[in-house]
């Protein structure tokens, strides 16, 4: 028996390791899952637990903020994002999908929260803000996120963002000037100040009606449940 013991131990560890990998490797990505529209009946959806965090108001961010949808919409979604952060890039199509599904029931705000660990996060935020000064924040926001892998490893990102500016029909000279302007810097600073006042230290951090959404609830299927809950609460008022 003693001769077999080391082999029993080794096989036991191997069994546990293989079992853990097989059991826990089921896909649970932040990206879109096939179970989107097909599962969109309220009854079929699981109730997420835990739900949203406590209500937080914080200090105001840059004014006016970048928003989509009517300010009177029953569900206000505020995202603190970093353009170089891969999960923010993964969250971008999710929010786009929510907007397509819920339309004017959502009021979406994007706040700049470039993290110091990302080399190009501030130039990317500046490019989006500079595009915003010509009324095309969301167009630039979409391009930067959708092409994240094209520029995040580049040495100099400015020519790439200038290319995007040209692509969306901006005045490129003005864009180049605005990207380094005090106004753009001030807007990023103010959004960052709001992020810190709300205790935001990672991205994407999302608030629904001023309550923080835990990161694990950001996939579309759980986000839908949270939005539905808010819509239901609003209709009962």
């Amino acid at each position, binding site marked *: 028996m*003693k*001769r077999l*013991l*080391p082999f029993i*131990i*080794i096989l036991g*560890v*191997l069994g546990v*390791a293989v079992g*853990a*990998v097989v059991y*826990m*490797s*089921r*896909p*649970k*990505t*932040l*990206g879109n899952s096939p179970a989107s529209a097909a599962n969109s009946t309220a009854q079929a959806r699981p109730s997420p637990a835990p739900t949203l965090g406590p209500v937080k108001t914080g200090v105001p961010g840059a004014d006016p903020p970048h928003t989509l949808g009517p300010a009177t919409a029953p569900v206000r979604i505020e995202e603190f994002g*970093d353009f*170089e*952060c*891969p*999960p*923010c890039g*993964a969250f971008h199509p999710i929010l786009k999908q929510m907007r397509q599904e819920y339309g004017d029931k959502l009021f979406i705000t994007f706040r700049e929260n470039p*993290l*110091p*660990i*990302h*080399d190009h996060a501030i130039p990317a935020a500046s490019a989006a803000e500079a595009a915003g000064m010509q009324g095309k924040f969301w167009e630039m926001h979409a391009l930067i996120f959708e092409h994240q892998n094209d520029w995040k490893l580049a040495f100099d990102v400015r020519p790439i963002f200038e290319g995007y500016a040209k692509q969306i029909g901006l005045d490129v000279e003005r864009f180049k000037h605005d990207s380094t302007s005090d106004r753009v810097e001030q807007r990023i600073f103010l959004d960052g100040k709001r992020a810190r006042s709300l205790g935001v*230290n*990672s*991205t*994407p*951090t999302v608030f629904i009606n001023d309550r923080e959404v835990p*990161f694990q609830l950001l996939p579309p299927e759980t986000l839908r449940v949270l939005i539905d809950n808010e819509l239901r609460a609003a209709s009962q008022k």
Partner: protein
Amino acid sequence: MVSVENTDFRTSTKWIYVVAAVLALVGLTDALYLTIQHLSGSSVPCSVTGGCEEVLTSSYAVLAGIPLAGIGAAAYFSAFSLSILAAFGYRSAAKLLLPLVGTMVLVSVWLFYLQAAVIRAFCQFCLLSAGITIALAIVVFLAWKKGS
């Protein structure tokens, strides 16, 4: 085939190999966690202090289609198995352990360089793995010195 040579295998050396097995088990758990993260496609948010997402989504996280963490898990499992066998007196296993752990140290140094100089982000789980490998190398070297 490893040979069984239980005679005159000192008890203190056996316990050193038990320590090596425990370290390898901790390393295996860490590597398995990263493998599961990779296979399940789980996202971790980017944080002010962390760089895990950058490291784990970089092109260096996969080698010939196999997640690097999985290769690490296989290496830790091999180190664990050899340590257990060595603790039970299989001297050939003890002899194989030294080159295995030596290779793991070299790979860890290379991965540390990649994080520091190429990806320019550190993943705490990868740093933990490097620390465990270094500790494992020290323990295995001590056991080898004692045993030889």
